[in-house]
């Protein structure tokens, strides 16, 4: 059988196109379906969405309470719903606790609030190591946490989609929500980075 003899596969660009063409020939792809879905992936699902959620939670205690109690409802208030965003749980960091998200089995991520998972998040290096040696992995990636900060790793093995709620850095008093959101990156929402206030 083909898969036992490891034939050299056709280049992936040609295989992907072949799959599309085969479905097209059978008229199975509705007009605009691929284009619309691609727009969701490239434009609508963006870490700026999660950043707006975090900034709101930093300035509005009632919203923060809702986000921690029912992340799905809190994200819905901004319209951030859809596939891979049906059950969102926010994980609250403190100065002595860093939450970190992974999917060791594949690539699960809260698409509507974080955007599609980045390549490094899907890498075998991250998936294999972060549940076991997170402190070293984070240090290698550029986040050197003191021993006084506990690290809790969340493995996205079922249908819950996580987002990290970082703690608001000092020296951001009086900032607008928009400015606060600007320091919340995709890496911050995954938990491998902390918001940095430009000096």
């Amino acid at each position: 059988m083909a898969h036992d003899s490891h034939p050299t596969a056709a280049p992936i660009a040609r295989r992907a196109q072949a799959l599309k063409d085969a479905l097209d020939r059978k008229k199975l792809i509705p007009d605009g379906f691929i284009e619309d879905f691609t727009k969701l992936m490239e434009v609508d699902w963006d870490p700026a969405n999660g950043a707006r959620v975090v900034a709101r939670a930093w300035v509005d205690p009632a919203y923060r309470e809702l986000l921690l109690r029912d992340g799905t409802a809190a994200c819905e208030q901004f319209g951030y719903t859809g596939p891979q965003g049906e059950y969102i749980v926010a994980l609250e960091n403190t100065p002595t606790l860093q939450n970190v998200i992974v999917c060791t089995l594949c690539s699960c991520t809260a698409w509507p609030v974080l955007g599609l998972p980045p390549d490094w998040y899907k890498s075998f290096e991250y998936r294999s190591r972060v549940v076991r040696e997170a402190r070293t992995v984070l240090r290698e990636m550029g986040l050197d946490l003191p021993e006084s900060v506990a690290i809790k790793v969340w493995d996205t093995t079922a249908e819950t989609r996580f987002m990290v709620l970082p703690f608001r850095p000092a020296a951001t008093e009086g900032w607008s929500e928009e400015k606060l959101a600007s320091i919340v990156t995709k890496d911050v929402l995954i938990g491998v980075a902390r918001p940095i206030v430009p000096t």
Partner: protein
Amino acid sequence: MDGIHDLGGTNGFGTVPHRINSLTYKPVFHEPWEHLAYGLLFLGADRLRTFNVDELRHAIERMEPRQYLAAPYYDRIVVGTASLYVEKGVLTQAELEELAGGAFPLARPQTEGRAAGSPRPHFEVGDEVVVTREFVRGHTRMPKYVRGKRGTIVHRTSVEWPFPDAAGHGREARRQPTYHVSFDARDLWGETAEVSAVVVDLWEGYLEKADE
């Protein structure tokens, strides 16, 4: 399935290829074909309802291990998706290979899977549980690094989802809540563990109440 995809805790991989906050993450896709992977997956899973996402995950797990390791991420999505369209009778491997102008290796054959166990009382936050010591040949969402381990429930989902060990095989799948179960990292990785706790999201059927 104790497959190549179940990577949590595996030793030997090197540095994660990323420095924090070094990327804008735009453009989202790097190759002109990459958007087709999820697009054609969601066509099958969401629009045509030819298969479900658990079956897709399992199709990728069924890739020959060397093929899995060598293929970039979106290549694996394409292979898993194509395998399901073929297995469900929508397409044939021959037509895919004709259109691709070369070999189009698919996942290894689907197996039977298993049904969910009978319903039982839910666990509560704070309960101590043990992950069942089951060695499942088909699809499962219990990573092997927690098999047989004891943990504490920190959250029960308010929604229930189809039991993946059945759904991943296209079988009727009873719904269950999942639980965020917190494990002391030392129980998983020994006394020198670098992490305080690992929290894993587990279907009810993977858990038993721990002895006092």
